[in-house]
């Protein structure tokens, strides 16, 4: 559950930190708080995983990492969480989730978004994932996007979301 201070910090930083010598102090002053409070709360949010990391958020398209494929994996249920943890740690995977199967049409229970400079690069990385999984793997596929039908940015929603728990 996030309180008003957390939400104020999200709003103050969702487009980035102030690029100044004292970014946390500048945020504190803008919010009418003390720098020590901002620092303590940001550290707690990082430790809790609410902040995944702090630093450069690359524009991977501008940097030439323009291809991506949604790789999907049918992994033995008893192995999927251990396998997922290893796949997520790869530096070319941006999302990694266990999701429900929809048998018989959809047998895959693990999703990993793989990024590369070309489609061939992505396919080679998908094969590297297959090798990593080993015998727990029954089948896999990679779904490339052929068209963006809609894309809107992630927006901060009203604090009413707070009660979601």
């Amino acid at each position: 559950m996030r309180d008003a201070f957390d939400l104020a910090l999200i709003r103050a930083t969702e487009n980035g930190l102030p690029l100044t010598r004292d970014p946390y102090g500048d945020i504190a002053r803008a919010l009418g708080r003390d720098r020590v409070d901002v620092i303590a709360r940001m550290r707690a949010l990082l430790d809790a995983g609410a902040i995944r990391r702090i630093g450069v958020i690359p524009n991977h398209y501008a940097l030439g990492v323009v291809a991506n494929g949604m790789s999907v994996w049918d992994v033995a249920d008893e192995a999927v969480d251990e396998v997922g943890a290893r796949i997520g740690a790869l530096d070319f995977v941006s999302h990694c989730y266990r999701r429900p199967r929809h048998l018989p049409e959809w047998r895959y229970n693990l999703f990993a978004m793989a990024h590369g400079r070309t489609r061939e690069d992505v396919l080679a990385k998908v094969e590297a994932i297959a090798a990593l999984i080993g015998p727990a793997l029954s089948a896999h596929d990679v779904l490339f996007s052929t068209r963006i039908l809609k894309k809107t940015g992630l927006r901060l929603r009203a604090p009413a979301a707070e009660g979601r728990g």
Partner: protein
Amino acid sequence: MIALADADRAIINGLQGGFPISERPFAEAAATLGMGEDELIARVKALVAAGAISRFGPLWNSEEMGGAVCLAAMAVPRARYETVAAQVNAHPEIAHNYERAHALNMWFVISALDPAKIGATARAIEAETGLDVKLMPKEQEFFVGFRVEV
């Protein structure tokens, strides 16, 4: 593709995480990169301005932004594809929608403040299109080590 100086590469490769939460974080980060505090700040500003980096700061877990999200997929007959895409996209709860090369050929993300709205939106799309919407909620999220090497 954007041309980068060696110092810019060092910033992008070395600072995709681990930025300090402290009184003078740029001074600390600059020391590990072998440059000065003001140089690091100036280079980060220039990289943002050039579009090489989207922003500099915390990457928030999207669930912290409020509300619920769910991936969904449909198998849409080719002849009706554009019509169905328009029907799906008309829902404000649809944030992203992609055509993908598979029998399940339309993949979209439903997001809503109220988690109950996820299922309600899926059922509304099913009623409008007569097609099955397969909800694929995340059951487990794995730590992601994604970083771009330049």
